């Protein structure tokens, strides 16, 4: 069976890898150590910290940026047809110095093009942007969109202004202009309604609520209506909450449409037509639970398989989705839904 993996995290070994790609004056800033990159405001408790503990170099050290290791641990054993690179370096997390954020995004995109995309045609690329500089982000999308492996724009979920706010419109206009998918992924700043909680496990369990908030914001503030050909995928944000959100938002729309008449369809219809979800973490559902959930979602075209490699909460393609699911459903999850989203054909054998 063909396999498209919608969430694979390439990386660099450190912020200094970006120095050759940075524009001045920011190159000099980073070269002299003015900023050393993001660090998470919590400790990872899993054996390999943020990554699987078996993602290691030959000398036993933790590997964070090695194409060869990714090929041997992921692409080869599972026979990936495509792997969508989604990064985990999101300059939008930089809360000030917007010019630096945009320069870092551009440098990272050039780094990934050279060190990852060029090495394997199975890689699908994502454009990293600084969403706090929407006009700059739009220029970066315009700059990178012509790359033949680029298919989407990463929109990282942070902790302040949700993406339905009018300030972000240039990003959506640019993505639609180039036929790119918008991918929402959490960051180390993503929070629930009462912040991160007191423990990492608490914060991690809250992540779907930040995605729900983004979907609510995007639809009710007119992004789905304003950019009618734009499509969205929620990465690593859960999916079993979708039936609740569809029902809740439809009910809210029926009784409160007068406040948001620029929304022309029931929210559930927008979701069905335009929104997709990556499967990891697949929540260890049984086959029976999967079938009930798909029935409640009202469509078997929402879900796109993902592993989240190399992160610690990796989903194994052969174990995370029950084998008992009907073959046509598995084919949609592992291949057809993602191929349709990214407009891909089966690779030549």
């Amino acid at each position, binding site marked *: 069976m063909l396999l498209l993996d919608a969430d694979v995290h390439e990386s660099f070994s450190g912020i200094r890898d970006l120095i050759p790609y940075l524009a001045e004056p920011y190159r000099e800033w980073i070269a002299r150590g003015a900023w050393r990159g993001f660090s998470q405001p919590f400790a990872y408790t899993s054996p390999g910290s943020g990554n699987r503990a078996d993602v290691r170099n030959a000398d036993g050290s933790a590997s964070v940026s090695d194409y060869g290791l990714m090929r041997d641990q992921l692409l080869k054993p599972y026979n990936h047809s495509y792997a969508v690179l989604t990064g985990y370096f999101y300059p939008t997390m930089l809360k000030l110095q917007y010019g630096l954020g945009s320069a870092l995004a551009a440098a990272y995109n050039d780094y990934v093009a050279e060190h990852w995309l060029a090495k394997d045609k199975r890689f699908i690329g994502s454009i990293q942007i600084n969403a706090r500089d929407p006009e700059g982000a739009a220029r970066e999308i315009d700059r990178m969109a012509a790359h033949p492996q680029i298919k989407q724009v990463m929109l990282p979920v942070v902790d302040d202004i949700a993406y339905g706010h*009018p300030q972000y419109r240039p990003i959506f206009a640019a993505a639609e202009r180039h036929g790119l998918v918008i991918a929402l992924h959490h960051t180390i700043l993503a929070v629930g309604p009462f912040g991160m909680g007191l423990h990492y496990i608490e914060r991690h369990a809250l992540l779907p609520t930040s995605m729900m908030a983004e979907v609510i914001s995007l639809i009710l*503030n*007119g992004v789905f209506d*304003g950019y009618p050909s734009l499509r969205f995928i929620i990465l690593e944000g859960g999916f079993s909450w979708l039936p609740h959100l569809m029902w809740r938002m439809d009910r809210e*729309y*029926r*009784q*409160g*449409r*007068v406040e*948001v*008449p*620029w929304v022309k369809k*029931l929210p559930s219809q927008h979701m069905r037509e335009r929104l997709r979800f990556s499967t990891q973490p697949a929540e260890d559902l049984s086959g029976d639970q999967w079938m009930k959930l798909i029935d409640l979602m009202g469509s078997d075209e929402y879900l796109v398989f993902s592993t989240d490699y190399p992160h610690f909460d990796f989903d194994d393609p052969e174990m995370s989705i029950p084998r008992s699911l009907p073959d046509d459903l598995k084919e949609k999850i592992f291949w057809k839904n993602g191929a349709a989203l990214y407009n891909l054909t089966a690779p030549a054998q």
Partner: protein
Amino acid sequence: MTRHLVCRADQVVGNAVLPVMLGRGKILLTRLPSGEIKAIASRCPHQGADLQHGCLTGHVHSDEPNVLLIDRPGQILRCPWHGFEFDVCSGESVADHGKLRLRGFDVEIENGDVFIVM
């Protein structure tokens, strides 16, 4: 088809509903800006609220976030409970684009009298 005399035409005004009883059922009458009288069932098809207590308003529309425009004045009846909107001309739910429908009745005017035709 049977005609039922329910009220005088001059009792029916715009931007308000006039409840009339027909057997055990309540029917609401309203007058559009054009002068035409419309008759609809008083029971909301959602959860059964009495629409007599709702409000008649216009149709709020927009193609641009944070811009609110109104047309079809006096033509949209909002449920007193949940605010669901119904077009008194078509009976359609505005949000559901016709999937939830208010029952409408034919109206005839003769010598200043209003008749419901069923």
